[in-house]
């Protein structure tokens, strides 16, 4: 704090001295001559110089010199204002003291005296020294981010980072971490499964190509993986192969343990896809419900929060065609037809001249809605 005020004082004094120094120099300097006359004499010299080098014709030289000469005479005849030092040192000294005082008053009004810098490296060091249980998810993610940069070949570090990013409501960060993890350990089906789930979560429940790829890799490594089988069957249904998808789901149901809490979710999904009434019994939403493709109430709430965030971001910065497509798709998947249509209308108006964007918007709007717990 003392260092701050000393530095601020030195800066103020140096600036004030600069002003005083210039003023003192002016008081000592003689009054210069009439600069306008000097200019016209220079102009005459330039005309002569150009003519001597053959760059203007003699006739033009004569005319230009006559005109510049007339101006020179007029300038010489014009009354010249007498400038003098005018005032003593008093007013300038007063100004040199008043200006830093004004700055000080302004700073106290708008600044935050005493508030130290908060560089990220110092904050990170503090978090690393803290008990991890006391850290917020985002702080934990920052610590893990640093750890993974120090141990870039450890897939487990990236898995933990993904979990922290997910808890910090940063699904894109989780996806990035998991992509690192699967590059380091492509043989681990659990990482591919997490990646697929994170991709679905990031897309607001929609099955993107990246998610499908991740689930395919999961299934290749772990043919019995329930989440991957569920999502790939869902992908089949979305792609129009309803019977194939239903058959896969039924096979999955047959393979699931009788006490698996996710059976109810799956039965509801089969019933809805086949057009039959859903089982009367309310499906228990077990912890693994999300892994079976449905979203719990909390997850759904988080997804809605993310979609609202995307909508706000697009309002602030609407020039993001990819963002509009994602927003329209997210509203469609959430079954919010009103918002979907409003977003679609706004995006179509914005990208009226870009047929490829219009196509992508139309496809996004056609995404089938997903109900809570489905």
């Amino acid at each position, binding site marked *: 704090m003392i260092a*701050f005020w000393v530095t601020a004082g030195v*800066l103020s004094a140096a*600036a004030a001295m*600069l*002003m005083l120094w210039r003023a003192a120099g*002016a*008081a000592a300097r003689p*009054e210069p*001559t009439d*600069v*306008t*006359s*000097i*200019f*016209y*004499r*220079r*102009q*005459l*010299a330039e005309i002569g*110089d150009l*003519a001597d080098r053959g*760059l203007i014709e003699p006739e033009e030289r004569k005319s*230009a010199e006559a005109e510049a*000469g007339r*101006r*020179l005479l007029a300038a*010489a005849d014009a009354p010249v*204002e*007498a*400038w*003098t*030092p*005018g005032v003593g040192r008093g*007013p*300038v000294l007063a*100004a040199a003291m008043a200006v830093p005082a*004004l700055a000080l008053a302004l700073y106290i009004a*708008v*600044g*935050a005296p005493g*508030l130290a*810098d908060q*560089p990220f*490296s110092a*904050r990170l060091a503090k978090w690393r020294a803290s008990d991890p249980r006391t850290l917020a998810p*985002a702080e934990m993610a920052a610590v893990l981010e640093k750890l993974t940069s120090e141990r870039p070949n450890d897939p487990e570090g990236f898995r933990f980072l993904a979990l922290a990013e997910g808890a910090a409501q*940063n699904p*894109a960060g989780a996806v*990035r971490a998991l992509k690192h993890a699967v*590059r380091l350990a492509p043989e681990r089906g659990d990482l591919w499964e997490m990646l697929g789930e994170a991709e679905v979560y990031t897309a607001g429940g929609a099955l993107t190509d990246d998610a499908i790829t991740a689930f395919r890799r999961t299934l290749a490594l772990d043919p019995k993986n329930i989440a991957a089988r569920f999502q790939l069957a869902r992908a089949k249904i979305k*792609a129009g192969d309803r019977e194939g998808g239903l058959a896969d789901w039924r096979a999955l149901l047959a393979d699931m343990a009788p006490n698996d809490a996710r059976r109810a979710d799956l039965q509801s999904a089969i019933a809805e896809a086949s057009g039959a009434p859903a089982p009367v019994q309310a499906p228990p939403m077990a912890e693994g419900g999300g892994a079976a493709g449905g979203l719990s109430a909390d997850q759904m709430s988080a997804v809605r929060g993310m979609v609202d965030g995307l909508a706000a971001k697009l309002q*602030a*910065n609407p*020039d993001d065609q*990819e*963002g509009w497509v994602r927003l329209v798709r997210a509203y469609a998947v959430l079954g919010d037809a009103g918002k979907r249509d409003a977003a679609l209308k706004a995006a179509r108006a914005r990208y009226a001249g*870009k047929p*490829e964007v219009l196509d*992508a918007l139309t496809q996004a709007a056609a995404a089938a809605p997903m109900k809570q717990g489905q």
Partner: protein
Amino acid sequence: MIAEFGSFALVLGLAFAAAQFVLSAAARLRRSTVLAAAGEGAAVAAFAGVAIAFACLIHAFVTSDFSVANVAANSHTQKPLLYKVAGTWGSHEGSILLWCLILTGYGAAAATLGRGLPRGLKASMVATQGALGTVFLAYTVFASNPLARLPLDRIPVEGNSLNPLLQDPALAIHPPFLYSGYVGMSVVFSLAVAALIEGRVDAAWARWVRPWALAAWSLLTVGITLGAFWAYYELGWGGWWFWDPVENASFMPWLMATALLHSAIVTEKRGALAGWSLFLAIGAFTFSMLGAFLVRSGVLTSVHAFAVDPKRGVLLLIILGVTAGSAFTLFAWRAPKLSRGGVFAPISRESALVLNNILLAAATMTVMLGTLYPLIREAMTGEAISVGPPYFNLTFAPLMACLGLVLPAGPLLAWKRGDLAGVAQRLWAAALIALACGVGAYALVSPRKAFGALGIALGAWLVAGALTELAERTRAFRVSAGDSWRRLTGLPRGAWGMTLAHLGLGVFVLGACCELGWRGEAAEALPLGGSLDVAGYHLTLETVGPREGKNFDAERALIRVTKAGREICTGEPDRRFYPAGGQTISGIALCYRGASHLYMVLGERRTTAPDSSGRGGMPVWLIRAYWNPWASLIFLGPVIMALGGIASLSDRRMRLGVGRRREAQAAPATPDAPPPTPLRPGQEQTA
């Protein structure tokens, strides 16, 4: 401490800018050299304060100090260092601080370098510059403080990052150039206001204005070109100018400054058009401020439109209204009393420059109408309309074509009374070349494009006209080669500047007309190994793989380009996802073919429909390719023009202090002594 020190330095800058205004105004009233010098010292101190504040803000961005609200809103720990630094001026608050830095920098430069100016004019100019600095710094400190802090309990763990579209090398340096151009007009503005206060505008004033106008114009030319180049390769649609309001906002002051550069020549050489030059000087900075208002107020939607807080937009509008309104009121009051300059015939260099100014002013008005009309209409009726290329093609383009047609004749006309027949005789070769180029383009280039061929003819006419002017100055082919060479090396840099600027315009017209006339385009969803054709080039999608950036993940394609079976080049466009902002952008690839470009864009990955066996389809990527003939000339032309400006600026005649000491020695010591004898020709050269 550093962030707070920056905050203190900023308010210190504001206080010294206010002192600059008060001391310089008092100096003018009391004709006091001491107060004037103190005002000049305050100008330098104000600049030092703002420069320190700016350095502290850069430090906050580089160290990711998210306790600074502006850093938290616009930076991210994973951003590369270049974009952390560039993020300083990537936000609304930071860009306004950059504006203030450049404004006070020009103020300090004018106070320090303007030693050859009359006392009264200089004091009024420094006072005006101080008033501008005070207004903009007050806005920065109280309404848009880039160093405002967040309470400790509200500091986010991570920042919101910067729009990925702005994370680009060209755009990192684009704002400093653009602002140096915009704000450079403030000195021209201050000189105009000072001249109106002094009631005297003459040839000397025009000479004092020209270096500042030249510097600002050159920097603005580079800034606009960088922006156009960024739009060309960053936005991924292959265009370089879309008549977007943000583009127009930077173009209007450029047009006004171009007109001013030409009218100031007439004022300097003949003492004529003094009022008009003043009007343009005020107008150029007014359009700069209008540009800042349009882009910063939130009335426009663009990557640059940061401010969504309408209060700040209203404040900027008030600053614009008060500043420009005061200057134009002063102009209306004082300009009619200014003395008229020399007379000239309808066919003369002066008349050609007047025609140039009429066309440039009309072009500026068409751009302004096309930019502001949709905004005014929306504000009044609530109905959003868009004014796009068709309007500008029908209004702006014909005006500029007329300007291009008469441009080569202007420099060949004599002052006062010109000889049109003589000029026509000297330009016949240029006309023949232009005609041959136009006819050749129409007849030989497929497909036939009449307007494209006319554009080629116009570009060739401008290039040949500029070279003809150079040949005339050196009397090429009329005197011996040695004599021509001697004349060429003896040409003043100002003459080189003019030739380069006109040549650059011709090069730009050639590039723009060729690109717009014969552009080719193809788009197709390609699987790996798939191919498409554009303008005779065969593009094959070889591979698509991941690419990891510091703060983005990407898919990168390898596209092999062949023509008639011969490999030409490979392109690696990518598609980047920035997790911090959740945005995806395209990174294009360019394959240079002489001055032409093959432009490749990697689009979204899709999966084809499943096959009959129920297995998933294969991935395909939307590949877009553009053939942009002579596109390099679009950017090379303005660079040549800016070089012309710099060449002119380096002309020793533009240096305000040149010869001052020597001539001061020759001049009488007292103001009322008789005027000295004019220097002999050539004497000035030794100064």
